[in-house]
């Protein structure tokens, strides 16, 4: 019984290490393929549209409501110290350093990550990926590289947008609903929030974009087991990428300060 579960744990660990290895290989070959012509510009734009443009609505919605609730909560807390004027910087700093990149990352992972894994997984189980190979097309170059590039480029842009609408949402609640002076709100925000704060969030989002697309592509690309396998690839991608985003967020916060 004990030996049994130990053995299973061993097998599980082996599988995890195995897939980390394969994922790293996929990343390395993607990086090399990115630089070998011909470059698949059209595929990249298509993926950028899918990851970026089509995520706009959801990140605007999450960003603005998060900014609003942040303003509300920090107002309640800061009021006790008579520091209502600090609501603006609190909202902006939280958005720029943490919530912008993390929320955008998680929302886009839920939306685009599962779709990417499903699409590649379906292509795998219906032999479309094999068909690409038989035509002398490297499927990693054709399918994976454009998605990773799109993730790395679009996540920071989505993050900026999330930050921005969050700050607007915070301003709306703070100024229009809670009665903080608009000049004070904006002035304080500008005083306290630096370019570095925003940059920190953007660095993070670059990493999150890489994580999301790599995890989704890896799971989709190596799907086995028919329709069920495709479903599993989608779920695994979202869960794995979300956890990895949160863990790496902590690590990056430690490193970037």
């Amino acid at each position, binding site marked *: 019984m004990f030996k049994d579960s130990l053995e299973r744990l061993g097998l599980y660990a082996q599988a995890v290490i195995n897939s980390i290895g394969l994922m790293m290989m996929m990343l390395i070959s993607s990086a090399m393929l990115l630089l070998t012509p011909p470059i698949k510009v059209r595929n990249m734009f298509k993926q950028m549209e899918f990851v970026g443009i089509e995520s706009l609505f959801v990140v605007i919605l999450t960003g603005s409501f998060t900014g609003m609730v942040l303003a509300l909560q920090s107002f309640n807390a800061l009021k006790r110290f008579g520091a209502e004027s600090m609501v603006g910087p609190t909202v902006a700093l939280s958005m720029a350093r943490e919530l912008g990149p993390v929320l955008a990352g998680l929302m886009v992972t839920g939306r685009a990550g599962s779709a990417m894994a499903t699409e590649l997984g379906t292509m795998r189980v*219906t*032999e*479309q990926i*094999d068909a690409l*190979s*038989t*035509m*002398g097309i490297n499927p990693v170059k054709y399918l994976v590289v454009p998605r990773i590039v799109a993730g790395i480029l679009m996540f920071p842009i989505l993050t900026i947008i999330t930050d921005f609408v969050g700050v607007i949402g915070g301003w709306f609640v703070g100024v229009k609903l809670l009665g903080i002076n608009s000049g004070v709100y904006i002035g304080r925000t500008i005083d306290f929030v630096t370019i570095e704060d925003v940059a920190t969030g953007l660095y993070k989002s670059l990493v999150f974009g890489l994580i999301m697309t790599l995890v989704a592509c890896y799971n989709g690309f190596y799907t086995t087991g028919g329709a069920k396998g495709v479903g599993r690839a989608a779920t695994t991608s979202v869960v794995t990428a979300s956890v990895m985003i949160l863990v790496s967020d902590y690590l990056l916060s430690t490193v970037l300060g």
Partner: protein
Amino acid sequence: MIEIRNLRKAFNGKKILDGLNLDIEQSKITVIIGRSGEGKSVLIKHIIGLLKPDSGSIKLDGLDITTLKERELNEVRKRFGMLFQSGALFDSMNVADNVGFALKEHTGLQDDDIAKIVREKLTRVGLKGVERMATDELSGGMKKRVGLARAIVMDPEIVLFDEPTTGLDPIMSDSIADLVLDTQKALNTTYVLITHDIPFTYKIADKIAMLHEGKIIATGTVTEMKESTDPVVRQFLEGRAQGPITVY
């Protein structure tokens, strides 16, 4: 000329190919027959390097393709055209983009020229006016024929067809047989076909090879195979449930 020597492949401990030998001659039509699940599709995927054998070699004009790296393999693959048993059409593209895909990727042809070739190949497989259709709007037999058109669009030297006539009506099957014979004559194409379609086989095959229990147990021309005394070959070609091969 493709020489397959001592090819072995097992999946999860189950031996599928078990020391298989086969010569595929250039500019000839080789038909591989055998029961469902014997490993015909697995064999054909080895020939184009989609699967790596556990041991054995596949030499294409003397070059062992089982040892090639992905990049080298991709070069070799440009000499091939393949129809998958499942069709494997790209579902994100319409019919014309599916058929014209390799032209777009590997040649500098203008869109107009590509469209012309695509139309010609589609006509060749009996399809007209389907260019803009999505792949999921096609019937099973139409999918198969789009797959056929896609496989031959580059006029490849070597064509691998995995069950080209399954799902086609007999008239269409016969016209696919003509297509195979015509292109083989006109372009000296080497064909490797897998099929369960015996009349089709008799019409086109230069050489029939029967796969049974992981090995090629018999090869020969149509006449030779028809006259074979091997009970397994006889049972298969005559399509009898009774014989050395048991259904269960």
